[in-house]
């Protein structure tokens, strides 16, 4: 796509977890992926296939067994504040208020500068008035916003998001997706976004990485060349969605395509 060097290069990446007693469990198998600057990548795959594991390695929390991840050409060896991880079910600190949470990663020389940054992001995520509130006093969606703001406030260039909207109710999720796209437009971060929600991936991504069952490898990378916001009944949108369902081995009705069944309607993909 772009001529410049890719922002993130995942090269021949494999990971085996040591199993107690038995032979090691292979979780990731020879994964290759390259992501350009400012790209929004969604990673979908069956649950338990290794999506979180992949993201954890890319962020430097885990070491791979083989291969490497390079960011700006430099191998990732440890976590770095220039790329921030956003956790499934939020990891806001329950002992800090909203503004303290958002200010947690800040390193400006003056307190005034920090406070201004915090205020800017509180407004961006629509939590003005909740500066002094504690996570326990907020809803799940609000806490997820706080975590996103905490990540953005330290101005990273990469965001790793591990099913950040997975625990939210349907309507909150829709709203958060739209807001996320808006934020991404303004801030131009490179985003690796894991989800198990195929619709979510088609709505958000520039490209969708479909992973196989464990040991996970990249099954397909599907570009989504649709203008945002994406209409849920656009034929191209539906085609891409069905293609992903098909790749994941599930038909329109949520049935398993591998399972023997006589009344099975195969989607007419390909």
């Amino acid at each position, binding site marked *: 796509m772009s001529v410049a060097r890719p922002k993130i290069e995942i090269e021949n990446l494999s990971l085996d977890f040591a199993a107690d007693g038995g032979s090691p469990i292979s979780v990731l198998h020879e994964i290759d992926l390259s992501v350009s600057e400012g790209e929004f990548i969604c990673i979908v795959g069956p649950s338990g296939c290794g999506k979180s594991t992949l993201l954890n390695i890319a962020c430097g929390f885990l070491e791979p067994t083989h291969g490497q991840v390079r960011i700006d050409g430099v191998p990732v060896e440890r976590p770095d504040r220039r790329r*921030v991880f956003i956790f499934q079910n939020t990891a806001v600190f329950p002992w800090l208020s909203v503004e303290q949470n958002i200010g947690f990663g800040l390193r400006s020389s003056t307190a005034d500068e920090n406070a201004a940054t915090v205020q800017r992001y509180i407004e961006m995520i629509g939590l003005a008035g909740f500066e002094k509130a504690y996570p326990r006093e907020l809803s799940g969606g609000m806490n997820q916003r706080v975590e996103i703001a905490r990540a953005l406030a330290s101005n990273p260039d990469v965001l790793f998001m591990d099913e950040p909207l997975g625990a939210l109710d349907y309507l909150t999720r829709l709203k958060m997706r739209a807001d996320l796209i808006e934020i991404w437009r303004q801030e131009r971060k490179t985003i690796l976004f894991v989800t198990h929600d195929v619709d979510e991936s088609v709505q958000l991504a520039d490209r969708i990485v479909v992973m196989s069952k464990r040991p996970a490898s990249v099954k397909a990378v599907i570009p989504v060349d649709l203008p945002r916001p994406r209409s849920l009944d656009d034929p191209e949108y539906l085609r891409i969605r069905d293609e992903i369902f098909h790749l994941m081995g599930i038909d329109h009705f949520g049935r398993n395509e591998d399972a023997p069944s006589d009344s099975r309607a195969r989607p007419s993909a390909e």
Partner: protein
Amino acid sequence: MRRVRKFLLGLAGIGLFVLCWQLATWGNGRTDVPGPWLALSGLRDLAREGLLWRYIIASVFRVMWGFALAVLAGVPLGLAIGWSGWVRDLLNPLVQLLRPISPIAWLPIAVLMFGGVRWWEPSDLSAIFLIFLASIFPIITAATSAVEGIDAKYLRVATNFEIGGMAMLFQVILPAALPQILTGLRLALGIAWVVLVAAEMLGVQSGLGFQINDSRNNLRYDLVVAAMIVISIIGICLDSAMARIESSALSRRGTAKR
């Protein structure tokens, strides 16, 4: 409604016990197991004498010192054992070895250790030492398991923002472990209070444990039971004070887990 019922039921339980106590001790004098009325009049005698308040202060003073020293030593030790692999390997076997020894078993050693001390009343020091021993192990254990139980994602957030060392300790580890540490402290204070009485039964010349021993030597069993009642009440006061500290420290944040 619910609370009234709870209160009345609790009262009924105590009332039932007092009734059985009264029936079982019917007609007993001061040199037998005293009944509730005798115990109450003993309590009145104790309060009149004026010694009671001095003894309460002496006992609470010893517990506070022993407990405070145990907190100062036990929390950092427990955090270190929970956090660092080599500190755990170094100290955990020792802690496990010392933990099963009842603090009371240390009494002769404590008397030897502090017997020659000039700058303070030696018997006071040995009682404080026993309290210290009684509370430090539950504190270490609570702090250790609090650190081990910290959700890894909080630590990851901290390393993600490149926070380490002392900042990590004070901004993440300590606050994350705080609820469990406070629960452990409350438990340890309860144990300390229980052990105090035994610690005061030998060597010291004041305190509620001494009162019990002294009254027994004078064959005033009504005063023995009266002192037992005082011990119970002070114990409840200490526990609710700890509970207040606990809930005010955690008031807004709720539990660490979501």
